[in-house]
């Protein structure tokens, strides 16, 4: 227990890590709250969406569907199409979440684009890793819920314009991409993902384009990887998770 970082020190580090997401989530959440109250959804239902769906694009899309008079069947299909990419994030976090059975349900269910981006790029923290990931995930959702409620209650009377501040999310993705470029120094995953995402978006629209981009990027990476990458992969990304349950030695 002595080697553990203090709870408040760990929390302030988690707080610092989530600041870019805070800027993006507060402004996007505000926009969502405004849209939801504009289209006549009650505040408690809007709150439930941010608590239990917790999927930015999915929530915007559902408000649009409700405004167009859609029902539960369309809602199910829409939610599946918009959010299916999150399953891929879960698959890549299986090992990282495995040592933390009590936190795992929340970590899994709160894995948004932004939380996955942060967790998969921030350095791992050994014995503190579970608590740290839990704090980052919960803080991100707190920003999203706070932004939503601000939009619902006070958004209409805000005296200042927040236009453009949500670019912080794009900037966050750019920063995390630069950090991945330092970690995985091979061109093909990036080239494959970018080309499939662009072509997928042109052909099938932005949401399907993301799924096509993920699939295309992984396909190109699996074709182009050299034999040496196979074994170095797990040690490069997960050097400090010695207490993980599943062994890889038998592969």
């Amino acid at each position, binding site marked *: 227990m002595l080697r553990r970082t203090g709870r408040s020190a760990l929390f302030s580090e988690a707080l610092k890590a989530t600041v*870019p997401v805070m*800027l993006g989530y507060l402004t996007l959440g505000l926009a969502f709250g405004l849209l939801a109250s504009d289209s*006549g959804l009650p505040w408690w*239902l809007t709150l439930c*969406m941010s608590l239990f*769906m*917790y999927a930015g694009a*999915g929530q915007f899309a*559902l408000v649009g*569907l*409700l405004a167009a008079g859609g*029902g*539960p069947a369309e809602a199910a299909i829409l*939610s*599946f199409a918009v*959010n*299916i990419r999150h*399953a891929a*994030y*879960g*698959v*890549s976090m*299986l090992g990282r979440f*495995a040592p933390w059975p009590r936190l795992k349900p929340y970590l899994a*269910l709160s*894995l948004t684009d932004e939380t996955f981006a942060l967790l*998969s790029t921030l350095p791992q923290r050994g014995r503190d890793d579970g608590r740290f990931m839990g704090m980052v995930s919960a803080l991100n959702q707190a920003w999203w819920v706070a932004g939503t409620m601000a939009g619902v209650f006070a958004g209409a009377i805000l005296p200042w314009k927040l*236009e*453009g501040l949500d670019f912080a*999310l*794009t*900037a*966050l*993705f*750019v*920063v*995390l*991409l*630069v*950090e991945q*470029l330092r*970690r*995985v120094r091979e061109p093909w*995953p990036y080239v494959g*993902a*970018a080309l499939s*995402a662009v072509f997928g*978006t042109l052909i099938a629209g*932005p949401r399907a384009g993301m799924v096509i*981009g*993920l699939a295309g*990027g*992984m396909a190109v990476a699996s074709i182009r990887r050299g034999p040496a990458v*196979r074994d170095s*992969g797990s040690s*490069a*990304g*997960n050097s400090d998770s010695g207490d993980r349950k599943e062994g*890889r030695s038998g*592969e």
Partner: protein
Amino acid sequence: MSAIWNAVACVCVSALVIIAIRGLPFIVFRGGRVPKGMAFVERYMPPVAMTVLVVSSFTGIRWQEVPHGIPELAGALATAGLQFWKRNVFLSIFAGTLLYMLLRAFMAAGS
């Protein structure tokens, strides 16, 4: 069915679908039965996902209209350049976002 109960039903269904999507990988591969090739997914999913997320941030831009995506491109390039050079996450994001907001306001006022 009234509109409000239809909305409640739609939210419940959507929440269940999203919970299923996010929970399924952990139920399918529970008990340490992590399949072969997972090291490959763990290594390559983050770079592939980050590339897709950056690309998707740019798909909503109307390139034909003023300001032709210039604030977005300049903001992203400034962010990437600063991150390569200084490697300070705060500096990169705040400077990039500020440049984007200034260019956007400036070009909207000039047109």
